[in-house]
Structure formats: C-alpha cells, structure tokens
C-alpha cells in the first residue's frame, strides 16, 4: 500500500492491546512523550475477546489521572481499527499528530532538559 504517516509516530507492537497497562501509558508521558495512542482491534473483534475493551477503560483511567494533575487528557487516546484498514491507520496517525501539534509540547518535557534533548 506504501501509505505515508507522520514519522513522529513510533510504533510499539504488542500481541493484543489488552497487554497495554496503565503504567505503560503513564511511563510514556513521564519520559516526555507529547502524546500516546493505543490502536486496538475493532470492538467485538478481539482475538482474545475483550482485550481492546479492557484497555479502553485503562486509557480512560489514564486520561482521568492526567486531568487530575493538570495535563491535557487528550494527549492519550484509544482508537479501534482492523488490521486490514491500513489507510485508516495512516489517517489516525495524521489525526493524532495534528492534535498533539495543536496542544504543543508536553509540559513534562518543557521543564526537563534531558528528555527535551532526547525528544529533539
């Protein structure tokens, strides 16, 4: 398909989005990521039945935590798409990147010269 998507997006593969935990998302924010999103299978299509549904709840919880500490919750999102939807994958990557660009750099990174350097 050779679809392009923004090079800022770094993909971390997991066997199922159910493997993604709250701490993984928080760690990404803590280490200076401007945004994190989870791309799970379509709801009802999870090979492990409910991995994507469970992780949606974890994502919601992370958003709540971020809101409580004054970080924009929109920096963390969950999307659902099938592995056959390559075009949608690229579209989501662009959508998320645009949203994060609008929000600007993470306030965590702004005050941390080390992660600022790494991110640059």
């Amino acid at each position, binding site marked *: 398909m050779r679809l392009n998507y923004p090079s800022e997006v770094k993909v971390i593969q997991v066997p199922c989005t159910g493997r993604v935990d709250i701490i993984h998302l928080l760690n990404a*924010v803590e280490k200076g990521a401007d945004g994190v999103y989870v791309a799970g299978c379509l709801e009802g299509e999870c090979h492990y039945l409910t991995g994507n549904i469970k992780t949606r709840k974890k994502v919601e919880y992370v958003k709540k935590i971020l809101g409580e500490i004054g970080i924009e919750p929109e920096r963390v999102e969950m999307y659902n798409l099938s592995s056959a939807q390559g075009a949608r994958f690229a579209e989501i990557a662009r959508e998320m990147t645009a949203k994060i660009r609008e929000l600007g750099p993470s306030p965590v990174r702004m005050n941390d010269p080390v992660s600022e350097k790494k991110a640059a």
Partner: protein
Amino acid sequence: MIVADRKSLEEIQEMIKPHRKLLIVGCKGCVTVCNVGGSKEVEILASALTIARKKENNEIEIDTTTIERQCDNEYVSQLKETVGNYDAVLSMACGVGPQFLSEYYREQKFYPAVNTTFFGGAVSHGIWEERCAGCGTCIIHDFDGICPIARCAKSLLHGPCGGSSNGLCEISKETICIWDAIVAKKIEQGRLEDLLKVRPAKDWRTARDGGPRRSIREELTR
C-alpha cells in the same frame, strides 16, 4: 477484606509538597486485593506524582516498594535499611499501615495515600460492597447470613424503618433495604417466625463504643 480508595491526587500532592525524595510503600494484603495499594498501584501513583512535579518544574525523586503486610512488624522491619534515606514515606496500605510504620520508625514522616472505607468484598469486578461493621459480637446467623448492622443505614435489629420503599433504602436508590432482603429470605425459607424471637439487647461494648479494642490469644503470646 479491608477496602480502601486512593486519595485524590490533589490531596496527595498537597501532602508531599515540601518533600523532594519520597518512598511509596505498598502492601500485599487487602489493598492489593481491592486494587488500591498493591505494587501495580504504587507504580501508577509514583508515575503520576513524578509527571505532576515535572510539569511544575519541581522535580521529585520517588522510589517504590511493596511489603507483604504493613500491619505486621515482622514485615515493617524489612524497611529499616532504606526508610531513613527519604524525606517522607507515603503508605498505600489501609489506615493500619502508616500507623505501624510511624510507630516502628519514629523519626520518619509517614502519609496515608488511601482512605480506608470498610470491611467488604467484591460483588463483581471493580465493585466492592460493605458487609461487616466489626461490631465484635456477630449475630448474622439470626438473619440468615445478612448483617443488618453493617448493611442497614440505621443498623436496626428489629425490622425495616419507614424509609424502606420497594426494597430500597431512603438514603439512595442504589442501596437496598437490607431488612426487606432479610424478610424476603425468611419468607423464601419458610422461617419468618424466626424474626419473632426475642433477643436480649445487643451489647455494644464490644464495638467501637467500648473504646479501642485489643485481641489477646494466650496460646500465641510469647
């Protein structure tokens, strides 16, 4: 088990405001089972507080550990090598934990990260309910395994009050009238007359009314 809820991050942030090096201690007992203060939750809290402090440009160094039980000095003593290396310690155990810790390490400052709520169990995944009030004189056998002390808003022992309506308690639409449930169960079992039994007034001295309680088991003392 003892059920607890994590305090708001705002409250915790306020507590630890003056400190720059913190230890968060979890407990592998009840608070692990009710997903509020086990090793997983300790890591989440540490990360959330680190993010918050980085955002404020007021960095904090946080270490984490989770011990077997904070209500037992045998395990509390395992922290003796490290506890002094921190400005303060945040305990994620029930209210017993920070008390045992501060009794054992008198020089250190301890904060509770959770609010201890009740004795109960999980009725479904992620939902816990109160079942016991720890009154010290169990009488649930008189009510077919349902405790009116813990589960009736007024702890009534002689039937429902006027606030019972369609099986619900007047305090909230989510709270069942436990006396309605007790009577329904007695009817179902054909033992409604059990409730006519005259019982002596309950001795509340074994509950909190008698002051702080102590339990001594001679066969175990040294």
